């Protein structure tokens, strides 16, 4: 357990702040992982719980301390030394104790007294829900277990630029991914409503609408990290949609950009900055900011089941618009020039839409235009 002297290492693999408290310098993720594994002993990042006796024996041997010193250390440095109140005084964790000198508590009491109005923020209530469900989950089979020394990246995907609210402030989803995942898997994990959009007028053929989702029609997408466009080329329909930007940049004297394949690049192969916004573009013009907020080694309290990764730990929910007839179900059809509708345009849920506009046989009644509508809160 003796701390060893460290040789001088190339500083490019050790991330540091580029702009103070904002983002880091670019670093290669795989090399960063190797740097940590060089410095740590296998028991530091193993998933096995530590054994107290073994630890003490090792410590005594390494430091050359005798049994009496160990006993003294054990008694003085125990967790019981941190108990501030005797066992019978059970403190209510939700109440600030009276007669306190700590400024934190005085400040908290003032804050608690101020906000008397009930701001039950639903986002906050459910913020940790997903985390709680999956933390510490063990896999069914050994083969599915996360290997020790694996990297976990926390990635924030933000709302698409077409949504006016929350564009830069609140992430839409937070995903946890392992280092060995490819960018294609990250792409598949991103849920955006624009993927489900159906273009076209379907008043005569309402049942055919689900067959024409944008997800199936426009499969091209790219990620942009540090001057490289990673294109999705898995399907024959995929095109290199980043070529437009690259050609434009060449003609406007920007530094040259390069391309790579999304499905061939794993997250450990990337060279990125932590905390710096990057781009994910799909459907041609639906752009999302992507920020990698954290990169760290896996820990035993994480979800260890690889089947559950990419893991969704946080999802921001959007208000949904309801049907204008029943106000219960989410609107699925958007009609214009509709003689039956109270307003133009108007939203209907599937049931109300069919009840109002079609007869029992499914024939179209009246004159209207109907478009399938995907609500922004479809992923709530």
């Amino acid at each position, binding site marked *: 357990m003796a701390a060893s002297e460290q040789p001088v290492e190339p500083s490019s693999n050790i991330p540091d702040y580029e702009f103070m408290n904002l983002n880091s310098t670019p670093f290669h993720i795989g090399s960063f992982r190797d740097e940590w594994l060089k410095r740590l002993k296998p028991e530091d*990042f193993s998933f096995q719980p530590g054994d107290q006796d073994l630890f003490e024996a090792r410590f005594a041997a390494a*430091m050359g301390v005798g049994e009496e010193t160990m006993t003294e250390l054990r008694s003085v440095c125990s967790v019981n030394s941190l108990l501030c109140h005797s066992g019978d005084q059970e403190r209510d964790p939700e109440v600030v104790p009276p007669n306190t000198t700590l400024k934190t508590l005085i400040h908290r009491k003032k804050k608690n007294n101020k906000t008397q109005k009930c701001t039950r923020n639903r986002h906050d209530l459910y913020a940790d829900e997903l985390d709680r469900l999956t933390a510490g989950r063990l896999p069914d089979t050994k083969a599915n277990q996360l290997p020790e020394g694996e990297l976990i990246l926390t990635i924030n995907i933000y709302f698409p630029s077409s949504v006016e609210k929350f564009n830069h402030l609140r992430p839409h989803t937070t995903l946890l991914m392992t280092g060995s995942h490819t960018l294609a898997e990250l792409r598949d994990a991103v849920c955006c409503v624009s993927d489900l959009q159906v273009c076209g007028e379907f008043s005569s053929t309402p049942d055919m609408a689900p067959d024409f989702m944008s997800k199936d029609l426009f499969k091209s997408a790219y990620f942009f990290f540090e001057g490289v466009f990673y294109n999705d080329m898995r399907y024959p329909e995929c095109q290199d949609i980043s070529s437009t930007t690259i050609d434009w940049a060449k003609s406007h004297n920007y530094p040259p950009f390069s391309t790579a394949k999304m499905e061939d690049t794993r997250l450990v192969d990337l060279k990125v900055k932590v905390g710096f916004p990057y781009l994910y573009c799909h459907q041609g013009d639906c752009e999302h900011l992507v920020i990698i907020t954290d990169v760290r080694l896996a820990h035993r309290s994480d979800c260890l089941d690889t089947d559950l990764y990419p893991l969704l730990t946080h999802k921001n929910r959007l208000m949904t618009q309801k049907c204008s007839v029943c106000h219960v179900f989410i609107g699925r059809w958007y009609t214009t020039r509709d003689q039956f509708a109270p307003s133009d345009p108007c939203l209907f849920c599937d049931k109300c839409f069919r009840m109002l506009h079609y007869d029992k046989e499914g024939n179209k009644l009246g004159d209207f235009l109907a478009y399938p509508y995907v609500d922004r809160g479809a992923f709530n």
Partner: protein
Amino acid sequence: MRNTCLVSWTAGNWFDFFRGVSLDTMPSFYTDFFNEPLTEDVEELLTRFQSTDSVRYGVFSAIWREMKFSDVFLGTTNNSEMKRFCRVALATAVKYFLPPHSYQIRVGGLYLMFAFYHTQPASTPVLIRLALQDWSHVQRFLTESKEAEHHDVLYIYHKLAATKAFHYTAMPHFLTFQKQKTKPEVQCKEFLSKALVLEELQSAEILEEMAGIQSHYEKLKEAAQVRVDVNITHPDFTSRLKQCMNEFFSWQQQRALPKEKNVGGEVDKDPVEDCSSRARLLSSIKQKSYSNVHTTSKSRRHRELEKADSFSSDGEQVQKPPRRKTHASLRARTWKNLGKTDEKSNTKIWLLSTPEQRHGVPLRKMSQAAAYTEYKVMKEAG
């Protein structure tokens, strides 16, 4: 029918609720890195620890119990807020565990990490984040402790490592490209390690100012035609001060040298120089932050940012704080370049399907008419 009325009424209320809540009141998952009242309490604890002139854990835990410090976690009803607070508390403790603080304060920081980790109320404990850049400082600290035979320091650290209390991370905090709203941290002067205070003195332009004041004083004396031997200070005290400082630095360097020889061929980064460069870096960042006190609004997010560069070896250099030009945000500039004006769309989407109001027909009619006019406006805007 009545049930749907009720449901739609409550749905309507939620509409109003969410409309009314501004973005600032919603707490974000990624908060500020530190919490001011907590930092004050921690500094109080560490000051008391420092005044005891001891690095024993028993002394620390006595102060902890006396201040009833584990109560800092009480009083929060909200689980996610509690988790955020735990994260902030641990980050505060790690801050004092790392340079440029003095050895005793760093020991206090380590004990604090141990204390916060074991007294936090969260059922799945929040872990202590150790960044890769700080690993060498930690190792040096442990070596010093081992040489000084502070067994309790080592025991506490290794116990934390054995209980797997650490997350080995890239950066010390979660970074989301959001500027910190709190004022930049002011280094507590008493906590700095003594070797580095002189570095700060040298890099802050105090000596130059003193020399300037001295020459001004001489000029005033000449103008007032006072005899030259009347002197409040020694005439060359600034140069003598500088000389003393340089002597100290060269002594420091010499003291650091034998360590390198003992390592036997392996090149070790000079701890003094490393700490001093870090101190210089911190003092320059402090300078920049003191000279630019106003906080920038969200729309001016793309202003010049302070870059955390490394310094050249000449220690006198201090960067002048960058002048902040007020220029428009990137978005505004792009819109201007593209020749379009930034019109916000007037459509209020939530009006497209309006819920029934509980009180009578007139409201309903009005809202539908409003929706229709909105639609017309949108149509005209194209």
